[in-house]
């Protein structure tokens, strides 16, 4: 199971805790994890990425294994530690506004 850590506002919106566990078929990528996240929690549609273009929202970042992977291709494989469930994929609201 892949673990995704959500920011507080999205936890409230989806009615879930800090960590969501997802079954992802095939290679785990940003796209496949977000597809699974949105399928299991449709209230999150449009809040992490645009519903049409699938582009990450500008003030959302993705961290994994102490790296910012936001700018990587959405189809690039996630680190093995994330794919195996050892480490989470963190969805972060960028620090802004003081």
């Amino acid at each position: 199971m892949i673990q995704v850590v959500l920011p507080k506002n999205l936890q409230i919106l989806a009615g879930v805790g800090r960590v969501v566990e997802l079954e992802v078929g095939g290679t785990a990528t940003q796209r496949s994890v977000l597809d699974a996240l949105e399928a299991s929690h449709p209230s999150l549609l449009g809040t992490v990425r645009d519903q049409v273009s699938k582009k990450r929202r500008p003030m959302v970042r993705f961290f994994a294994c102490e790296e910012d992977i936001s700018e990587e291709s959405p189809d690039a494989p996630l680190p093995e530690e994330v794919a195996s469930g050892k480490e989470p994929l963190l969805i972060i609201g960028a620090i802004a506004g003081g």
Partner: protein
Amino acid sequence: MSSVRVLVGTRKGAFILTADAARKRWEVEGPHFAGWEIYHVKGAPADPDRLYASQSSGWFGQVLQRSNDGGKTWETGGNQFLYEGTPGPHTWYDGSPHPWEFKRVWHLEPSPKDPDMLYAGAEDAALFTSTDAGQTWSELPALRTHQTASGWAPGAGGLCLHTILLDPNDGGRIVIAISSAGVFKSDDSGQSWRPANRGLRSNTIPDQDAEVGHCVHHVAMHPSRPDVLFMQKHWDVMRSDDGGESWREISGNLPTDFGFVIDVNANDPETIYVVPITSDSHHFVPDGKLRVYRSRTGGDEWEPLTEGLPQKDCYVNVLRDAMAVDSLDPCGVYFGTSGGQVYASPDGGDSWTPIVRDLPPVLSVEVQTLS
């Protein structure tokens, strides 16, 4: 026994305030959607238990919430607000062309007759409609593609469509207002639009009485007289007696005619309320005094209402959608401030008490009169 339900949108969540018809003892419930900006919450006139809320965040975008039980529980609706076609540019603050971008919904207006039908006013300015209780949305694109639209420029709050007035006697007539484009009117359910700004003068645009470009802050209408419209413009309080075809100034003896809110007493369509704000560079009430001004003559002659409101060291603002009236007799008047207070007057403005004092900054106030 009648009761009232006040729906409050704030910078950090929604609150629901309830009282019986005496409007003396209040229950405060919330926050709903804690941490999110709630620009507007409104009930459907045709089903008071059906509420809609516009929830948004600079980080996570727009969410639409719907309740079928008066706000006890909520479910998300659709949040795909797509401009039809490829949107052209509008004018940016510096005069350059700027692409049209959806940012949020400022105002939700349910149909008076069908609880599943509603309109949404968006930033950047556009009007959307839903006929399935907010599950899916489609734009009424004739407004955004109006021949003047490339010249529309945002006000300080953005290029927002903030006012939607539906004529209860004529299902096809809609009046909307955009900062800072002005008022537009449709007689065919939004299929075509024309500017309705004749008589407005604004010293913030080169041609002061131009067809569009006026920073209209809010427009109010009494449902029994849909042809009489009252406007708080950036500067100037205005009135139209012909459904927006022409406007005249009614600022009269107001201490300042800058402000955001304006509303009409439910029992007397010639009694109106504003909250004067010092100026566009001083977004707080004048002289440290929070005063609602009431006109019983449809404008021009105004009296300050101060009983129960702070009259020293008060420097709050009252935003454009943050005043509402109930339909009890005497009429209740409600408004919320940037300091998080929500004030209620159960006697048409004669006296005021804070329902709650320490909410996050208030963005909107609506009220439902329940039987």
